[in-house]
């Protein structure tokens, strides 16, 4: 096999007091896969994301990415290794402009020193111009080039979601985690989103793992699905096999998909 797994999750457990939110979950992702994480509310999907990005402590198990151990590393270290994410309840920097939201995310690639910044050295100016250009490029990609000077919090919901994706892209991630990217979007916006995610994978060669309740989007987009229920991984496979999996139908999808 030419491509080995990029993300390896081995026996992941996350425990809050007596509650096992995520229990012995194992899965792996190959580079450039479009994968989906589905399951009923409270199944632990977002907790898996939080564990992957270091936002909540892993009780036991291992997470490795590109053959590096990332279990219980702080979130900013994990971001540096190329895992970017968006949030279920959008977390933009609401009082800043869209452009600044994106420029912040270029932080880890900034080379100039503090003194360069304070004295506005040529290097500072060169790099800042580069950062701005990069941010405009990312905005262009999500189709928001004309919104760069808007205050992020004032944008409509659907556009905020796209800004958040653009901001995550500023990290030049290898793996992008999208937490309910289509929530609150109308069918047309969802279709645009689907095309955008495909484009990200095809053009930027990014692996995408998304949590989503819009089954039409999930079944159309994803090549591989993981189903969580009560913290357990109850099924994995391609959309076809998931749709006919009895346990999944019972726990989540319901009869109409069978």
């Amino acid at each position, binding site marked *: 096999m030419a491509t080995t797994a990029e993300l390896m999750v081995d026996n992941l457990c996350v425990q809050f007091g007596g509650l096992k939110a995520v229990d012995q979950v194992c899965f792996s992702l190959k580079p450039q896969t479009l994968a989906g994480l589905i399951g009923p509310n409270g199944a632990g999907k977002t907790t898996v994301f939080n564990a992957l*990005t*270091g*936002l909540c402590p892993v009780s036991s198990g291992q997470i490795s990415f590109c053959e590096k151990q990332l279990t219980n590393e*702080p*979130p*900013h270290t994990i*971001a*540096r290794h190329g895992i*970017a*994410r968006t*949030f279920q309840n959008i*977390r*933009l*920097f*609401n*009082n*800043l402009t869209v452009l*600044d939201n994106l*420029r*912040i*995310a*270029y*932080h*880890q690639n*900034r080379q*100039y020193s*503090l003194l360069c*910044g*304070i*004295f*506005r050295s040529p290097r*500072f100016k060169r790099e*800042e111009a580069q*950062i701005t250009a990069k941010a405009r490029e990312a905005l262009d990609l999500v189709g928001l080039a004309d919104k760069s000077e808007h205050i992020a919090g004032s944008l409509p919901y659907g556009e905020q979601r796209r800004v958040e994706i653009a*901001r*995550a892209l*500023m*990290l030049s991630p290898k793996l992008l985690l999208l937490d309910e990217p289509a929530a609150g979007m109308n069918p047309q916006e969802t279709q645009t989103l689907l095309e955008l995610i495909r484009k990200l994978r095809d053009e930027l060669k990014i692996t995408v793992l998304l949590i989503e309740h819009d089954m039409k989007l999930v079944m159309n987009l994803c090549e591989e699905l993981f189903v969580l229920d009560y913290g357990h991984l109850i099924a994995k496979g391609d959309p076809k096999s998931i749709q006919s999996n009895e346990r999944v139908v019972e726990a989540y999808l319901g009869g109409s998909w069978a």
Partner: protein
Amino acid sequence: MNKLTSLISGAILLFIYLLVQLLERQGILLAYHVQILSLCCINIILVVSLNLINGFTGQFSIGHAGFFAIGAYASAYLTVTWQVPFIFAIICGGILAGIAGLAVGLPALRLRGDYLAIATLGFGEIIRVIILNTDAVGGARGFSGIPKYTTFGLAYLTAIITVVVIRNFVNSDYGRACLAVREDEIAAESLGVNSTYFKVLAFTIGAFFAGAAGTLFSHYLQYMAPTPSQIGFVKSIDILIMLVLGGLGSITGSVIAAIVLTVIPELLRGFAEYRMIIYPILLILVMLYRPSGLLAGQEFSLASLAQLFKGAKAHGNHS
């Protein structure tokens, strides 16, 4: 455009300095007036540096007078005991305050909101009590016999340097990281920003400038008293009021508020005791009508003024 506006700003700043010098020589500005102007500059340094911590990084600190006191006393001790050159004393005062900022910030910045406020308040009082009990710096009697090295020009120059450095900091990637921490710490972390590092960095830089302001202050008044109103929590609150009035996250707002709130109490001297009533009423009015401060996170600049003027002109031509 950018070069032009900075050239014009420089010319205006130089003009103000020369004007003050001229008026002083002509006897129009008395020593009293020059003292108020110098205090304005010192307060600008304090408020702008606190703005970096409270306004831009969003870490609510009310112990700024502690750093101010460290700078004031440490530098005075250096110039009195060892007769070190004043420039060196300013830098030493700043660095010592910065080190204190680092030492306090590392543990304290794990706290958030109210808890951080209480911790920094406590720190400020600890510094004051330590000074109160240190005989080498005069203890409760106060520290007298400090040489008068601070001139208006020096205070003015330091204030300009502070404003420029903090403005440039805020407009760099480092400043953006601080803004990100203020806006949403979790999002900032998930974008690769080490939030603890930037909180401590902002705290240390803010403390450094507060220390420098302290140095200028002690070498201006030539006497330091370890009272709450000079180096204790009352002083911290004074700086905080100026900051909030000017608007958190606005450097120009801080500068304006520092000047206004330094001058107003002096103007109100004619009203004797009533000024203690008028001053708070003014504050309440401003907070009622401009709840997010005079400039409310906006910056005032020559460029924006020119744009406004251009807009008005275009609008005028239109109609």
